[in-house]
């Protein structure tokens, strides 16, 4: 199987042989940090471009096609424009919080990249409570949004932030329950173990009914958590102009914007990891004839491709939602969570537990 473990080990050994352990650790941290920042920027650029192309496709337009080859440099040009733009702070804004909020949102988005496994051996931090870490850290991002809305001294921003608070706090429950349902099957919170448990088939197939219900709930909940349409209450352009980031301009706006896209990538990566095996190729059970041959063939495709393929397919799904659905109203949004998703999620958890105890999954 394609693996980057050797490469990372070679670098680790070389550093440890040259320097003492502390300095080697520091250098490794710097390398990982640079990788994370680069990844953040690249993801932002790619996803913004993808969003614009997907929306153009749905709306019978061409999308960006002038800057660079087939418009590929469009987002880079946009970012450049935002960087050289004046970062305006409103007069009566709380300057400290106003400036802090976009960085907080960005830092949280970057922290969430840590436990994501891109392929075998390419993972920043394989901690044993990976899934718990993800759901804990992702819930902090609401503070950044509330901070931005409060500090802007703008009524639209305030309403947007309050909506966002209610929304993220509610939908986190469903997202958490959906993940918990799958943890019942995997028996581990560690990302690498979860992926390894899908060697003979992805959980969406192995866990059949509870897994599918849990996947649907998870996708709905994370769409709401990332403030994407049809749950974009916090921004709600036609109602609140731009919601919590109405007053932001220049690079600070760009940070919110990039963080939103990186958040989409992360939630889709989590879904791909838990339900679709992360970097694990498509394997079938050994009981089926020629299974070994088929599995070997699948192994030739590198894990990075499997991972990004699955993640981007899910990102496309979320973008598809945005460009086809109207927005829900705030009370309908909360009704959906508390009256439908949460009870179904709880029942589903019980069902999954029963199935896991009885061993009915494959």
């Amino acid at each position: 199987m394609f693996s980057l473990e050797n490469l990372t080990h070679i670098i680790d050994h070389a550093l440890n042989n040259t320097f003492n352990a502390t300095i080697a650790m520091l250098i490794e941290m710097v390398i990982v940090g640079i990788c994370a920042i680069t990844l953040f920027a690249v993801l932002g650029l790619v996803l913004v471009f993808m969003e614009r192309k997907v929306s153009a496709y749905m709306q019978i337009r061409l999308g960006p096609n002038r800057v660079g080859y087939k418009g590929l440099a469009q987002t880079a040009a946009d970012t450049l424009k935002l960087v050289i733009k004046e970062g305006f702070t409103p007069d009566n804004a709380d300057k400290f919080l106003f400036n802090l909020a976009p960085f907080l949102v960005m830092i949280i988005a970057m922290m969430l990249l840590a436990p994501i496994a891109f392929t075998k051996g390419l993972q920043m931090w394989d901690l044993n409570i990976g899934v718990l870490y993800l759901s804990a850290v992702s819930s902090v991002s609401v503070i950044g949004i509330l901070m931005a809305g409060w500090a802007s001294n703008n009524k639209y921003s305030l309403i947007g932030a309050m909506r966002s608070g209610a929304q993220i706090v509610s939908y986190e429950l469903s997202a958490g329950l959906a993940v918990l349902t799958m943890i019942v099957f995997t028996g581990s919170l560690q990302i690498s173990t979860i992926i390894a448990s899908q060697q003979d088939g992805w959980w969406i197939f192995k866990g059949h009914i509870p897994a599918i219900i849990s996947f649907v709930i998870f996708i709905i909940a994370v769409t709401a958590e990332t403030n994407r349409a049809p749950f974009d209450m916090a921004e709600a352009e036609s109602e609140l102009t731009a919601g919590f980031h109405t007053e932001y301009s220049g690079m600070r706006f760009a940070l919110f914007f990039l963080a939103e896209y990186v958040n989409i990538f992360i939630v889709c990566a989590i879904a791909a990891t838990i339900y679709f095996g992360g970097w694990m190729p498509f394997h079938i059970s050994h009981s089926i004839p020629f299974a070994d041959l088929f599995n070997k063939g699948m192994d030739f495709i590198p894990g990075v491709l499997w991972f990004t393929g699955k993640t981007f397919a899910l990102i496309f799904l979320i973008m598809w939602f945005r460009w086809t659905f109207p927005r829900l109203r705030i009370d309908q949004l909360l009704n959906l969570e508390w009256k439908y998703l949460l009870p179904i999620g709880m029942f589903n958890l019980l069902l999954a537990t029963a199935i896991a105890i009885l061993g009915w999954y494959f």
Partner: protein
Amino acid sequence: MIEEVGTSPEGDLIINVGPQHPSTHGVLHLVITLNGETVKNCEPHLGYIHRSIEKMCESLSYRQFIYVTSRMDYLSSHINNQGCSLTVEKALQIEVPERGKVIRVLMAELTRMASHLLWWGALGMDVGAFTPFFHAFREREVINDIMEETCGARLTMNYIVPGGVMYDIHPNFQQKVKDFITLFKSKIDEYDTLVTGNIIFQQRMKGVGYISGEDALSYGCTGPVLRASGVKCDIRKIAPYDGYEKVQFEEIIETGCDSYARYLVRMKELKQSLSIIEQLLDNIPEGEFQAKTKAVLKLPKGEFYSRVETARGEFGVYIISEGGLTPYRIKFRSPGFSNLSALHHMTKGSKLGDLVATMGTLDLVIPDIDR
């Protein structure tokens, strides 16, 4: 009048929505009082783009003032021109030739379709779906092209003049409209699958922005807003003009009284307009397209009123003439103004999101309200 800033004495948040706001369809200024997400009061403030069109008309001749009315409700400028021409014709007792009448009706119905299409797209934006806008513009663009070919302009056509229409139709006109009919029929199902059948859309529309027929009448609502509350009010049926009595079409009445009923009325009207166009397209009579009129029109002393059905409702033109070259006084009864006045009744106690959605179903054109 409530204060425009800060909070109300009861501690409710006061927000100025507009004049620059993505969903006020131009530059409407609403001062809304919010308790949390609930709208307690909403008060439109007019005057931001007031151009005193009625006063302006007093210094323009009876041929000239018609062009200014294209700038009021710019989405049904044809029908505005038609209303003004009808008043002048009524005063001077000019008989419009049959061909002129049929061309007028064809153009008016095409305009109505273009206007309803734009409304459909904009409503999608108001409830948070961007894609319908582009789908609606795809078909609207075809209508605009047809208009451009015959009238020379795409939006403010100024094609209808006292006595008929300004020029004859372009030789391609009939073929192009036929192509449009084929295109539109293949696309109308797309609208229903994209928006009408969507469960989120239905939830956002049903039971929202309720106004009973009685209330709607007392606010002076007309057009699709009143018809959605179950009241018959189509001027094309009540007081037919320009040969509407000769065509077969249904007056769409819905009894839902809510946003969804208003939505359905307009969607069904699209099909009715299409059927009127189909009936007339192959039966444009030969002959003159414009009656012989004097170069300078002078209305006799007196008061003249006529009304037409625009895409938004009843549009009335009231002229007082002293017998001179220009009107002594002129007054337009615009449908948008009265429809807007019912907004606070419809949205009292609803959520902020519903305010925007309800405003969308009223199909407001601000220059029509704030003339």
